[in-house]
């Protein structure tokens, strides 16, 4: 993706966000009898207008910018990195759910081990070492947060 394309996407996205923010702020209660500053919607609307102006300026500058294909870079380096990213995202979303269901230690260990194996790559995996390191990190985090700082983790059906 070139810088020009990035700027175009950014300006349209920010413009859309500014529009939604402005509309949402309009719905906040307004009293005609008091100064406009005292109204709840004043400040969000002001920010929405500033954002819209900046987004339009970015849009203009991106439209006038020349495309330089040398600065083009892929959003994801290759298909594997996209797959790895999506899997990581899924694991992260599952983490809080797993913590409430299975408990902290099991979820933490399972998350770290899966991530280590995913990041190692198929041909260089050393499963016993990965298990030992994952367990070590889990116990370190548990020791610091639970035993040292006294954070009450959800225990779930396991521990």
């Amino acid at each position, binding site marked *: 993706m070139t*810088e020009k394309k*990035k*700027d175009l*996407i*950014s300006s349209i996205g*920010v413009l859309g966000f500014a529009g939604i923010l402005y509309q*949402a702020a309009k719905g*906040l*209660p307004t009293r005609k009898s008091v*100064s406009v*500053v*005292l*109204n*709840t919607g004043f*400040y*969000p609307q002001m*920010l929405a207008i*500033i*954002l819209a102006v*900046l*987004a339009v*300026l*970015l849009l203009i*500058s991106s439209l006038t910018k020349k495309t330089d294909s040398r600065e083009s870079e892929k*959003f*994801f*380096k*290759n298909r*594997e*990195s*996209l797959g*790895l*990213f999506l899997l*990581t*995202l899924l694991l*992260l*979303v599952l*983490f*809080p759910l797993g*913590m409430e269901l299975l408990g*902290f230690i099991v979820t*933490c260990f399972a*998350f*770290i081990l899966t*991530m*280590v194996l995913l*990041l*190692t*790559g198929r041909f260089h995996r050393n499963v016993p070492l990965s298990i030992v390191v*994952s367990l070590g*990190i*889990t116990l370190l*985090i548990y020791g*610091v*947060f639970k035993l040292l*700082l*006294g*954070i*009450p*983790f959800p225990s779930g059906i396991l521990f």
Partner: protein
Amino acid sequence: MELFSFDLYLQGLQFFTNPMMFVSSFLGVLVGIVFGALPGLTATMTIAVFIPFTFGLSPVIAFAFLLGLYTGSVYGGSISAILINIPGTPSAIATGFDGYPMCQQGRAGEAIGISTIASTFGGLFSVIILSFAAPFVASFALKFSAEEYVGITLIGLSVIAIISEGSTLKGLIGGVLGLTIGIVGLDPITSFARFYMGRAELLDGINSIPVMIGAYGLSEMFLQISDVKHNIVVEQTIGKLLPPWKELKRIPGTVFRSSIIGVLIGALPAAGGSIASLVAYGQEKRFGRRKELLGTGIVEGIAAPEASNNASTGGALIPMLTLGIPGDAMTAVLMGGLIIQGLRPGPLLFQQQMPFVSSIFLSLLLSVLFMLLLGLFGARVFAKLISFPKRYLIPAIMVFSLVGSYAIKNSMFDVWVLLIAGFVGFILRKLSFSIAPIILGMILGPLFESNLRRALMLSKGDWSTFIDRPISLSCLIIVVLVLVGPWLMKKTRILFALKKGGR
């Protein structure tokens, strides 16, 4: 407020009878150097990820740890810059200019030694300036009204928009997006709930710590995965640590000059160590005795940026502690750590919590001394860290981030805030947005809104109140100069070049 009284600086000594102060400061520096030395893990990210470790600690001990992290990670960034020419933190970019060539000459240890000595001097210099300048600025800031705070906030946001990576427009958009995060929750004037989506957790606003951990920590891990950086492993070895005396005696002038530059730039709202180190290197290139040799691997080329970036640490704490306006992204995160301890930075902190402020000066001093010891005696171990496999580090940092966010209020809601912030931060960084303006905007949002609306209420909606007061007017002029200055200079240069060409 009493100024320049030694009593003022000794009030914090009482806390140092507790050995935990030394332990937390030492651990902070150690962890800071370790994370700072790892390429790709910035000092800001390190502080954000480790803030949750300070929950439950007393504010003085917590801040001794955080200041240790701050000092250690800024210094640690130089190790990877010297050994593999990849700065561990942005403030070490200029260190690699001469550090790496020196390493290629087989003098990596000496380069790290010079970096340690220069960083220590810069750090000590900044502590001295901080402890004398901060009470003075705080007493001056007591006279500030809402208009001045609006002006200073705008300076901060415009400077960070200019200096952060990517275009200025995107920096400004980032700053306003950050201010937008601050509008969730109760209206500071009318107390009406805004954009809280029916969640009681959002009535107090979006918790800034999970946002910071997500935007810096989690998004960085996503970037490493998407750019396949987690497979990179490099190794380096280092020899003797101290360069010969004839080399050492070349640096005092450079170190002193660069330390002054570092403190001054650090004290500017939003301009931090990376700018300070580049400016110091630039000055060395203009005024240094061996300026023509810079870039070939000489000691001055390492001493200048390292003294400067460490001197900026104390400098950046001046606006944060005295005005409640962070000097850079790192101090914005540090300010978050201060707020969760129930302390609000600003001039009143000096009136109401002077022993705490005094302990900050002493903790920073202690962390610089620990940095010297760890830097000289642990350099060989830290050099090995750059080859630490990322496949273990990435999951560990992710879990630290998840658990740390949960631990703030024992709330799963904050974990979801972290995940959203991490994902949005990743998308924004991929679109060439810098995270620093967003975080600064978020931190400054409540201060900016309440002061802007208070000033407008008192003036009955008359915006000229911001140009009627001299300090406020000066701030606005600075904002305009900061934003329009580079563009004007560019246009003038083109005009002159055209005129010259036309002759």
